[in-house]
């Protein structure tokens, strides 16, 4: 155990600065404004409480959301936390295409949130249905059921792109408060 602790203490810190690949699809707002790295930098120091809602995803977006809490990304350092209830949340982070069996849960979670509230469509399925398209079991993209404030594209979006979206949402919230 002592040896292990010694080794862990010597290990270098895994947490990294946020970076993007060249030409990587970035989050954008309904008016088309693209979220850039400069905007992100200017928006540190905010706070955002997030409620996740899987409306019919394949689980990949959800896994990447989970990764946001690992030591590499350490989302908490940006003042962003995941909540257990929509009643405590500022942002509803919707993953997946909205299925017939989850449309009501999505609507009721949104209605349970205090104002001001934001909705993120996270991943291609939540934005436009992605590869799933239409079927008897699918209602459609998130905005068919709740109003969407920010889109995070990708299948799934890489964790850094999700972070950019969350930081931008934190700033949007500050403007509305």
């Amino acid at each position, binding site marked *: 155990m002592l040896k292990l602790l010694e080794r862990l203490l010597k290990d270098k810190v895994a947490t990294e600065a946020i970076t993007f690949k060249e030409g990587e699809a970035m989050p954008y707002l309904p008016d088309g404004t693209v979220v850039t790295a400069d905007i992100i930098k200017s928006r540190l120091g905010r706070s955002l409480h997030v409620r996740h809602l899987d409306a019919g995803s394949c689980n990949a977006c959800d896994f990447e959301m989970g990764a946001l809490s690992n030591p590499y990304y350490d989302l908490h350092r940006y003042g962003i936390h995941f909540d257990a209830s929509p009643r405590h949340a500022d942002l509803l982070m919707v993953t997946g295409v909205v299925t017939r069996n989850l449309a009501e849960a999505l609507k009721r979670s949104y209605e349970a949130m205090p104002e001001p509230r934001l909705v993120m469509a996270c991943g291609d399925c939540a934005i436009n249905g992605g590869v799933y398209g239409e079927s*008897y*079991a699918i209602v459609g993209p998130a905005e068919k059921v709740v109003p969407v404030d920010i889109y995070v594209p990708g299948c799934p979006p890489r964790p850094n792109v999700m972070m950019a979206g969350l930081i931008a949402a934190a700033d949007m919230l500050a403007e509305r408060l």
Partner: protein
Amino acid sequence: MELHIKEISVGELLSEAKAYSEGGRHPLTAMFGRDERSAGGGFAVYAVFEFPESRELRGLKAAVGESMSFPSLSHLIPAASWFEREIQDMFGLKAENHPDPRPLVLHENFPQGVHPLRKDAPKEIEFIEGKHTHMHTVSGEGTFQVPVGPIHAGIIEPGHFRFSQAGESMLQLDAKLFYTHRGLEKTMEGKTALEVLPIVERICGACTAANTWSYCQAVETAAGTAVPRRAEILRTLVLEIERITNHVGDLGNIPAGVGFSFAVSIGTRAKEMMMRLQDSLTGNRFLRGFFVPGGTARDFTAEDCARAAEVLREVEKNVLDLARIFAQQDGFQDRVRTTGIVRNKTARDLAMVGVGARASGYAHDSRADFGYGVYPELALKVVTENSGDVAARILVRIGELKESFRLAFALMEMLGREQGGHRTELGTPQGEAAGLSESARGSSFCYVAFDNEGRLDRIFVRSASYANWPALPIAVQGDIIPDFPLINKSFELCYACLDR
């Protein structure tokens, strides 16, 4: 792989299934329905069994007549229960004498008499309001219910759990799932083998390689296409990498069930190393785009393998650390031992697969049983434990990780010696075939049937989670409700690939 189908009448289904099963010696892989009315036939019910001694999948195909029903096999083969309920929902074929005939896939919002996998099902289906699903509960003095979900507190997929409690003890658990049912099997009908590939890859986020390999095996068999040896090595290697990623992720996730965040940090960090390795090798953190019918989309260079070896050695160190930490923490051992037990008999009755089966002393492993890819050359060691509890499922994963590291290094060496291409042209698939590959959770089965123009007429996907979900309500009985998250995580069942 070949699927040997025996056509029978519906009246013979019970006796034929009994003979095929031999008291569970040949596990029931899957049951599913098919609508062949447009080709001049009728409805059919398939039951597929594994014959590991001859490395064969054998299926019964029972033609359903005007009665629109078939005898339930669930009394004889408990593993049949959910499959039969799904056939009732999707095709409107009644399973006679089923012990629990409630709808499974379709929820209370679905109108009665509409069965979406029938070829003539309407495209637009109305929403029914005001109906409720009947949940199984326990009644009596002092008992109470705890409803949980479909939306859970963490970043978890949706499902509704109804616990019947006596104090802290869980007397009974009933689960209502299929919230993320997207109707994918219907969506894939009428498309070509290549058109549906992106959908197959997105049935589930965690088992892309396994689900897609099963699908590719099925399509390649139907097309009579032989895959180059280099592709077989690459596929086997990537499947083991996917297993390492998932098992490492689970070792970092199970301790979260008891609030052991030190172990969670080590595990989630090691998982991120694997996700980045997957990205650098295949161009996608979830391995999407790598498996294609006919081979693989990419080849690995010697530099790729050197980089992979470096990461794998680092991840292996973390796994050994975790194994030591788990063993030394009495508080952790106290929580995981004798918790969430699945007996060996239960595992066999339910035809469980993967870690869930092997932790209960049931050595079910499609890599050993069917020997696809280059597994026959690798002298695979199937890791088992006997106690069937959370501790056993952790130990099986640790044992399998050690084995997967060994396999990955052996496969990279093999790759260095093997010349030749990694992809060949896919022929036109015809008729029906199946595929099977071992995901981190257990075997993933895929059945395909093509029409004369090479378009999908039917696809059925039975992921490992499908086979293991029915074991969860049994595993929790008698344990205390605070242990539910721990037991649930120890199986790491996926909702998306069950729900489809």
